[in-house]
């Protein structure tokens, strides 16, 4: 080793490499900055223009009135979206977290492999196909009609693989040294799980849940097939009552030749963006509150 370092030829080569390394670093830095701008720029532009248009014609009645033809407010869509998202968060959340837990703790065998593959295949199915399957199976075959239940179930199928995967990964990333330390203290498995493993995995699980919820908030295609649309307040019923939701308002009102309708479209888009920002903030707060003593901060 020492010999090669002293070799003048090698020293030269090393010097050359160092200069080249510097210019490579500079190029990478420029490329990275450009990609950052390429991502952040459009995001800011979209958010800015949506908010600008929303604010220009904003009426608070948008939040308090239901829709009326091409006018009125967005209360029915806001409540509908909240109900759909709550349903997905509860059903897909519990299914996904339990599956992810199963896969990480007992998923080494054949069953785990089969489940994991099935989940990956499911995650790859386009959402509009899921929507169509939901339409054929739930809306038509089970006679649920366009309904809250059909919408929630289809979105659930869509995001469960995602939640399961992030849960499994987060649990597997909990350092084995924590578990062994706890085992060596004679802690029960349930205690180890609650006090140490879940707590450590929580940021990952939360992030997965939030992103899944954000997907559910932002989906349109599968809901068109399953939840339908309605301008009245959603009924407290899982079946037979179509539900309005914000993404429908964005898409539908934007294509109308009416200024009030287009204003509603921007209002709905603005509200969606605010909802997603709130979700992200919420996940950050949860992470910050639970990870005060984390090793990996």
């Amino acid at each position, binding site marked *: 080793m020492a010999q090669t370092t002293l070799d003048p030829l090698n020293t030269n080569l090393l010097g050359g490499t160092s200069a080249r390394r510097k210019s490579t670093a500079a190029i990478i830095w420029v490329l990275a900055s450009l990609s950052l701008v390429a991502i952040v720029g459009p995001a800011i532009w979209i958010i800015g223009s949506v908010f600008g248009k929303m604010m220009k014609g904003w009426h608070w009645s948008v939040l308090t009135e239901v829709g009326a033809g091409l006018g009125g407010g967005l209360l029915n869509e806001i409540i509908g979206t909240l109900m759909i998202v709550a349903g997905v968060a509860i059903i897909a959340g519990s299914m996904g977290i339990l599956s992810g837990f199963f896969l990480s703790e007992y998923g080494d065998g054949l069953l785990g492999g089969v489940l994991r593959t099935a989940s990956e295949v499911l995650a790859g199915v386009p959402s509009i196909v899921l929507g169509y399957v939901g339409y054929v199976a739930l809306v038509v075959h089970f006679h649920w009609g366009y309904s809250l239940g059909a919408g929630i179930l289809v979105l659930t199928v869509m995001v469960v693989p995602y939640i399961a995967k992030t849960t499994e990964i987060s649990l597997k990333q909990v350092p084995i040294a924590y578990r062994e330390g706890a085992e*060596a*203290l004679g802690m029960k498995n349930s205690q180890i799980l609650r006090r140490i493993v879940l707590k450590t995995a929580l940021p990952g699980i939360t992030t997965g849940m939030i992103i899944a919820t954000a997907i559910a908030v932002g989906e349109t295609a599968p809901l068109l097939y399953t939840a339908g649309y309605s301008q009245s307040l959603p009924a407290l019923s899982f079946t037979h009552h179509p539900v309005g939701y914000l993404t429908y308002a964005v898409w539908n009102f934007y294509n109308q030749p009416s200024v009030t309708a287009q204003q509603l479209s921007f209002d709905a888009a603005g509200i969606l963006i605010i909802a997603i920002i709130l979700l992200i903030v919420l996940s950050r707060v949860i992470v910050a509150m639970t990870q*005060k003593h*984390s090793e990996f901060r």
Partner: protein
Amino acid sequence: MIQQGEHVNVQSFDALASGSDNHLEPTDLIVSTKELSLGFGQKTVIADIDLSFPRGSITALIGPSGSGKTTFLRTLNRMNDNVKGFTRTGDVLFNSESIWSPNIDLLALRRRVGMLFQRANPFPMSIEQNVIAGVKAHNIAKKSQLKQIAKMRLEEVGLWQAVETRLHDSPFRLSGGQQQLLCLARALAIGPDVLLLDEPTSALDPTSIEAVENLILSLSPAITFIVVTHNLAQARRISHNTAFFFEGQLTEYGPTKHIFEDPSRPETQRYVSGRMG
């Protein structure tokens, strides 16, 4: 103070020297292994180990890397039970009873036989919560006593002054040596009879090493120590007896002085004189 076993005459530690005529009552042995063979899958890691640990003694396990010291140590509180592919024949007795006997509660066993790892592994909770994690899990003390216990154990390991003002902070901002002392305080808090230490100081600076060694000496003979170490000087400084593991065998076992100054086997001689990894 929490009771930690009985007092023991230090002289009797040397009694187990191979070839010694001294007789020890079986009850003086807190842990002993009977024809213990361990392996993973098809591979045997160590075979046929008969090794006894007198109550209150400090035993050093030495030997080259890969000679099975960790595997042996982890078997003593059944940490290997659920490791994939782990195989075992033979037995381990704790207070003359098999640790796999149906009468033995695994969690209670681990409370009696604690463990400290090579890399300090505090839990992701506050310093104070770390110390009392085991106490809470075993429901040893009332809620109102927990703070007091944390303080007592932190004082015991000499960490109190350093952490007094940051009991609610993360343990990961402590130095490596302090983290290891914290883990020791956590292990002590549940009142173990035996502590298994796997190279507990290999990642520490000399000052921390000295702190840990002094602590081991001061906690003995109330606690029986079984210490894996690559640090031969450390083995000489702190242990009564030394076991030399080599190529899957317990090559030699006896009083530390004997092993280091007048070993019976040429392999031991080569290892302790530093002529072998």
